[in-house]
Each structure stands twice: as structure tokens, then as C-alpha cells.
């Protein structure tokens, strides 16, 4: 399997690039990437989500990927993940969808 980054496409056709390993934080995305479906070429269309939501998702995936290896005890270096209140419900749904 290639290590190319994958591209996530939002409802309004905005594209977000994310490294393959970061995307695989989400089991859903992982299954998509690893399967031999249309999306396995590296372009995953997520027409559910607005671009600002998808942007946040990508941000979170990177955040999670970056810090998941770090032990929880060394908390000083793990910054809070900022979630704007007005997006919370939409993100909740997205998280549910992506299984994260």
C-alpha cells in the first residue's frame, strides 16, 4: 500500500489532503482506504460534510495522530483541542459517522 496522502473532498468540493496514517485514525476511513473500492485510489468524497466541518475533522485527525502515541501523564505538552461551540453538534454527528 502506498504511503501517499489521501484527499478528502467536502460537500462544496473543497479538497483536504491528509496523510494516510492520520486518516486511518478513523476506522471508517481506514476501511475505505484499505478496501479495494473506488476510493482506494486516494480520493475520498465525503459529501455529507461542509468544508468548515471537514477542515475541523482533518485538524482533529492530525491532532489525534500526533498525540495518541504520547503518554497521558506527560500532559503539559498536549494542548486542548479547540471546539467552537457552534460547531459542536455538527462535529458530533461527523464523529459518529467516522467512528472517532
Amino acid at each position, binding site marked *: 500500500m502506498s504511503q501517499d496522502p489521501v484527499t478528502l473532498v467536502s460537500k462544496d468540493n473543497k479538497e483536504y489532503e491528509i496523510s494516510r496514517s492520520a486518516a486511518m485514525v478513523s476506522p471508517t476511513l481506514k476501511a475505505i482506504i484499505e478496501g479495494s473500492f473506488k476510493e482506494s485510489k486516494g480520493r475520498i468524497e465525503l459529501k455529507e460534510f461542509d468544508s468548515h466541518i471537514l477542515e475541523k475533522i482533518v485538524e482533529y485527525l492530525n491532532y489525534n495522530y500526533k498525540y495518541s502515541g504520547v503518554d497521558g501523564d506527560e500532559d503539559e505538552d498536549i494542548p486542548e483541542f479547540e471546539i467552537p461551540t*457552534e460547531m459542536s453538534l455538527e462535529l458530533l454527528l461527523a464523529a459518529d459517522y467516522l467512528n472517532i
Partner: protein
Amino acid sequence: MITNNKTRISVPEKLGLSEQSFEQSWEIVKHAIDHIYSDDMADLSFEQVYRTIYTIVLNRKGSKLYDNLKIYTMEKLLFLRETVFKNNAPDYEILETMAGLWKTLCNCFKITGDLMMYMDKVYCKPNRCLEVCDMCLDLFRIEILQKCSSSLISALISDIDGIRSSGYMDPKHTSLWKVLIGMMETLHDNRDNFFLTDFEPVLISATERYYNNAIDIKMLTPLEGLEKIRKLKQFESVLDSSFLNADSHNKLKNVLGNVLIWGKLSDVIEDLTHEAMKLSDERLLQEIYDLSGEAKYKTTIIESIKSYIRRIAKEIPFKDGSRKKGQNAITWSSEILSLFRRQRLFLGSIKFGSVQVNSSVTYKFISMTILHDVFATYFSEEGALPSEYISTYVDYCMKQTNDNDAEVVKIKEDLLDSTKLMELLSEKDIFESTYKKQLSRRLLQQKSILEIEKWMVQMIKNALGTFFTLKLEIMLRDISLSSRILRAFKASSTSSIEYMNFVPEVLTRTSWPFQSTNPIDESITLPPRMSQILMGFNEYYSLKYKERILEWAHHLSVIEIGCQFNNGYYEISFSVYAGAIFLLFENYEELTLKEIHELTHIPEEDVKSLVMSMSTVPKCRILKRSSNSGDTKFSVNYFFSAPNRKVKVPIIAGPASSHKSDNLTSQSSVDTYENENIMEVNAAIVRIMKTEGKLSHHQLLQRTTKNMERRFHLTSSTFKRSLQLLLEKEYIQRDADDTSCYHYLH
């Protein structure tokens, strides 16, 4: 104050395709599944299907989807089963098909599972049904594996058997088996996985059957059989490890052990063990021993080892009663000893592990226990002879000792090993009494080195205990003491004894194996020079030890006289009597038997036999006889010549029996021995009866036997004689009512 100015949370618009009906959605899913099973997913959008399922589940249609999926998958599998499997296909093809199908379907199930991930999470877990992937596997088990199980299993078994008999391990086959067994281990019903429930028992019994038929041990020699079994075992082990997990592998190993070792090898195990022993091949024996971990098996081998050694021991000729008894004893003992050593060395190199050996004793090493058992049994079967023989052997070794250090070391080694055998003798009393006699002779005639005798007694003490060596030690002590007394005596004595070398040996009577002093010793007249010395010593001794009585036992003594004959100077050893007679000729030219008797007071019969021995035995004819006018006269034979400077005058046993006590003949030794035994038994019975008061015949016999066990084997005749003696002397009494009961009389 509460701010009204809340942040507005944007409500997401309804997700996805909620307007679609369930049927429409199901069609999408079905379509996707079709593509998955035909391995054609390139045009399928995972996201779309996922979203569809997501929506269905979100709309609470999860259970319906689940059921539909189940039915649809079942249909798929049914179709596959009927199309893929051909009837009457060769075994290997069935296996290949199955393995192929399994691989493909596993992949399909996984992808389906991925697609249904959301359902797994939201529907299956809370509702406690199997996740989609597992559900599919379960269906596979029900629909395919169980339906085909019999043909699959038989195909697999016959394929395995085929490889076994070909003797060549085909990696193609084994890897296939591995896949299939992996499959079986994955699929499980609510009890256990399919492999454990259905396949393993069949495999085990098939293996058993196969190997049962694989080899006919009776057609092969033991060694060939072993070789064959070794090969089969090795092959099977490699084969098994290539496709089975460790657990099943072990199970099969056990089965193999049972079939090959128990079923086959046990028929020839004794021969095989004997063969290994014969070849002295410790590696082979070790291998045979390690073939099975079963205690029963190991015990069989140990018994075989025993029977082998016993047989070898029995083969050592045991010429009893023939003339050269001493020689026989030495040959026999040295052979037994070398057998013992050889086996000790041989068995010592075998690792026996920890096995319970059926034996009365336990050594730290099993090899010693084995040897102990074998030799103890052997000795007890042979009765008294081994005891006498070993003692004679020690006697022989002792007489061989000289000042050569290297030889002494070797002889010591022999002796040390012979003490090991002494431990095993059943008739230790015979050994003790024989040893005592031989020791006394060695000591009195100075045939051995005192230091080594002391060392040997110490060794015997280590082996048999203080009890046995008490008297032996006293004997040795007497000898050392005597030489000290002699030195003191010489220093104190002023008399002119320079030209005579006098060595008194003061012995404690009770410890030496002589029954009595010879009555004639009191009366005989010794040549004046000798009696002078004796008197001097007597005086000296009684001064030193006032309360002791010194008696001379001439019949045990030896006298050595240097004499100038015409042909040279000879040193002649005599018994004291003969010496006394010979010395008479210093003063007399010629003497008749009668005159000799009158001069010495030696009984006439003895005089006759002594003179005969000096005048007739060819090697030492120092007297000559001349008969004129019917009166036989004797005089010194000045023409005497001999090859060696030292000459020994043997004692011809005449009709008179004054020398019997130090004659070592088997008959008398057994007699004395039996008398001693009876004394021992008497004492034991009295001891037992004293504490018990009343005992039945049987009980008493048992107790006494046990009591005497350590020393000798109690025969019933000895027991009866002893009992009779005690009844006569009224130590014990028969019960008036029950004649089989005895009372102790106070």
C-alpha cells in the same frame, strides 16, 4: 444575570438520503454485496454504501437490515456450496477447493463487516447479536463446513496418511492442511472450535490406526525395529509441527508413544535392552529409555536391565565342590567384581530421571539401586558360597600386597569395590566368620601388610557397620599391641636371646576364631631354649598385666629354624610341634617315634603324622627314616636340598584331630556358623518373647526373621532347632490349649 446572547449552535441539516425507502437502500447494499462476492469493487463507492447503511441504521431499520443480510449471505453460501464442490473429486482437490473458498469468503466477510461497521457499533452491540463479520463466519460454519464436514475430514485424513506413507513431506500439502486447520480453529460453535470438537479426535484415532498398521515389529530384529520406530517418530514429529499447534502436536506425540512404544516396542523391549547392554552402548540404552515418559515403560526397562545383569552373573561359572576351591573363589569373585564395576560405570552414565523403582532400598542413583537389587538377589540365591568366596578373594588380594605402592593402590581399589559387594551379601555372618578365620591366619603368619589390613577393616566397617568389625578390630589391635609388648620385653630382658627371634602374639581369646586352646599345649615339653624364652616372657607379662592369664597356643604358632645341610643353608618353617621334634635332633642322632613322644609329650598319633610330613613329603624331606630290626628310626637328612632357601613343612592331617580347629574346610565352617546362628536366634527369640509374653508360632517366626534379616536369612530348620533348644531349657513353654502358641517363662 443570564445572558440571552447564547452562541447559536448550528443545527446540521438532515444527513444523507433519508428520503430513500428501506427497499431502495437495501437494493444498494445488495448490489454492493454482489460486487464484493464477485470480487469486483473497483467501481463501487465505499462511502456511498457506508452512508446508505448509516442512514438505514439511523432510521432504526437496523434489525431489518441485519436479518436481510443474514438471509442474503446464506443464499450466497448455499449457491457457492452447490456450485463449487464437485462430487467424487480427489481428496486433494476437495482440500484445495475448500481452502480457496475459505480464503475468498474470509475476505468478503471482512469487507462486508467493514461496510457494516456502523451497524456493528450501533445495532449489534446493544442488541447482543454477532457482529456482521462473525455472523457471516457462523453462517459459513453452518452452511458449508458442517454440510461438508465428513467429506472434508475424510479427504484431509487420507491426504495426511498418503503423505505419511510416501515418507516425503510435501510443503504444498502441509501448508494447505495448515490453512484448513486454521479455518477449523477459527470457526466455533458455543462449545469449542470445530477443530477441537470434530477434527482432532478423528485425527488422533486415524493416526493411531495408521501407525498400528505401519510396522510389524515381529518381522524385524529389535534393533531394526527401534531404528524404524525412531524414523517414524521423527517424521511424524516434523510433519505434525508443520501444520498443528503445539497442543495437538503433544497429543499426537502421546498417541504415537502409546502405539509405537507400548503397542509395538514393548514386545521386544527386553531383547532390545539386553542388546544395548551387550553392546555396552549407553547412547542406545539412553535412547530406549527416553522413548517414553511412562513410568510403567521405564520400570520395564529397569527390570530388563536387571534381568540382563542377573543372566550375566549366572553365567559366571560357580564351580562348587571341585578341588581348587580357592582358585574358584578367586576367579569367581574377580569376575563378579569386574561385572559389578563394568555395570556401575555403564549404568552410571545413563540418566534415569526420577522413577519409582520397586526396591527395598533407595540409593541416590538409580543405577546403584539396580545393581544392589541384582546382586543381592543373586547372592541370596546362591546361599553361603558367595560370602566365602568374596572373603577368600580378599584373602588373596591381601596376600598379594607388598611394598610396591602402585600395586597397593590397585589392590586397594579392588578391595574397596569388594566391600560394595559385601554389603549385598545375604549371608553376612558366613562372610564375617570366614573373614575372621582368614584374617587370623594372615595376621599370625604375617602374610599381609598390617596397615592395609587395618584400612580394609575400616572399609568393611563403613560398608557393614561397627557390629561386624568389632572382633576384627580387636584382632588387629592385639597384633599391634603384641609388637609393642615385644619391644618392651626385649628392652627389659637381659637373657641371651639374640640368636633367636621371638615374636609373641598376645591375642584376646574371645575375639579370635579358635574354639579352644589345644589341651596338649599344657603338657608338651619344648626344647630348653624355647621354654626359657617363654618363661621369661611369661614373667614379664604377668608383671605388666597382673590380672591377665597368658596361655600359649602352640598350634597356632610358627617356628623358623635356620639349618646348615650338606648342600646349603635353608630356613625351614615348622609348626611349633614339628619344630620341637626337629630340634631334638640337636642332641640325638636317631630317635624312634616312641622316644620322641616321651621327650616331647606330644601325643603319639601327632608325632607320627608330624614326622611323616617331615620325612615323606618330597619338597621337605629333612628327616630320613631307617628301619632295622623292625624299629623305625629317624635321623636328620643331611643331603636335603631344595630349590628355594625358604622351606615350609606342611602339616599332613593325620588321624588325630588336634589341628582341626584351624583347618578351614567348608564343612566345619558351616557347622560353626550354624551353631553361632542358633545362638543368635535363641537370643533373638528370648528378647522377643520377653517383651511379648505370648506369641503364636507364626508371629514369632515372622518377628525373628525380621530381627535377623540384617545378618542372615533365617531358615525354618534353624528356627525349629533353636525353638526346640529353648523349650528344652524351659525358657519358653507351649500353651496348654493352643499348641501353636508359646509363653515366656520367667
